[in-house]
């Protein structure tokens, strides 16, 4: 296996070299590759990523449960788009942590922060509330839970943008903050409709 990989790499290099000398050709579109985080980071970057891995995982549980229940098409589409984009974000964050040799989950129960105001609503609370909701109340409960959940994501992003070090992690925190704010806008429109 390793030998095959090496052979492929060698072949790729040869091809690259060949391209280098060939006449310029139209540049083919290359799909974007996963963002790299680099090697410089501080403990806030690590803690933020670990917290967000947990938070994303909880959010994914919520949107996946919504898929199995009756919601409007608009809500189902929003949940679906959140699911796929958040899954990619989750993989990127786990990849960065692993690349740094850090665990992808915080070493302790996230509820440990509850005493000083952190991670205020746990995934277990959210899931329990959502499982209990039935009929027409399901969609309202789902939206209100997810709105609160995404407000929490914006609050946590602030920690990273204030005291993180790694620019890529800060970029991601900015992205998450903006994205969640926009999602909240959509959901507030849907819940009030």
């Amino acid at each position, binding site marked *: 296996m390793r030998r095959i990989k090496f052979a492929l790499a060698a072949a790729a290099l040869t091809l690259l070299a060949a391209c280098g000398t060939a006449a310029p050709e139209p540049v083919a*579109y290359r*799909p*974007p*590759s996963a963002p790299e985080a680099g090697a410089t980071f*501080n*403990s806030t970057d690590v*803690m933020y990523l670990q917290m967000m891995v947990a938070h994303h995982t909880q959010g994914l549980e919520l949107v996946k449960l919504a898929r199995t229940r009756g919601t409007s098409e*608009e809500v189902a*589409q*929003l949940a*679906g*788009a959140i699911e*796929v*984009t958040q*899954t*990619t974000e989750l993989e*990127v964050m786990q990849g960065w942590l692993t690349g740094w040799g850090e665990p992808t989950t915080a070493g302790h129960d996230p509820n440990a*922060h509850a005493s*000083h*105001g*952190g*991670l*205020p*609503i746990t995934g277990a*609370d*959210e899931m*329990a*509330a959502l499982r209990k909701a039935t009929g027409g109340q399901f969609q*309202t409960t789902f*939206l*209100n*839970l997810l*709105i*609160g959940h995404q*407000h*929490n994501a*914006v*609050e*946590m*992003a*602030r*920690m990273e*943008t*204030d*005291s993180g070090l790694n620019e890529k992690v800060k*970029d991601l925190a*900015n*992205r998450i*903050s*903006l*994205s969640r*704010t*926009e*999602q909240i*806008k*959509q959901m*507030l*429109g849907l*819940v*009030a409709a």
Partner: protein
Amino acid sequence: MRRLVAYPLVALGLVTASLALASPASAHGYVSSPPSRQALCASGRVTGCGPVQYEPQSVEGPKGQRNCHGGLAQFAVLNDDSRNWPATSVGSSVTFNWVLTARHSTSSWEYFIGGRRIAFFEDGGRQPNATVSHQVSLAGFSGRQTLLAIWNIGDTPMAFYNCIDLQIGGGGPAPSPTASPTARPSTSPTARPTARPSAQPTVRPSSPAGSPSARPTGPGPGAPAGEWAPGTAYRTGDEISYQGVRYRCRQSHTSIVTWEPSYYTLALWLPI
């Protein structure tokens, strides 16, 4: 060597982290439906609200007030009745739904119209559920009313304030939800498409150049042949351009800023 440097950083990180973790404690909850004034600001349906659009959950002030902004100067806009707040049409019984971002032990929930308390829910210091709903009778009230909903925290002197503009009862068939209360010229500012990707001051992804902020959008037919734009309902199979590349939509969704084609959205947009 690295370790020696890292320790103080770790210590610093923990301090800042606990401060940051404490910050959600200043942000807790609001009424999302029928929409409170802060929810209307956060949804973009009412614009020009100032900072409350980013933290509708933070309208917190000392208990006992009878205003819409908890006495906070930065949220004074919520108390400004001259701003054409859209009113929601409701019947004589309404379920008020809250978004909570922190579940503080709760003394009570109160609902007022015109200084009269019309509903009271005693929680006796319990921690609320992850979501909270109350059914409130509006019997005896009609027409346009501003309802004040208050969440009294159990273990602090603070409360959360929400004003909710309602059009109560038999006001005729399907009254416009934006029934204007005042003498303002009725070109309703609330009808405006919520296009601008509301630049959140501190926050903006650094990568995507050429922000599409100038585009008038609104959930339109999808403009499948055009440039990607936020606020557009895209269907599976729609094709768009973004920064010179063509993409096909892989999953129907209504677009938002950050869902433009990128590595993070490969499941939404496939390059073609």
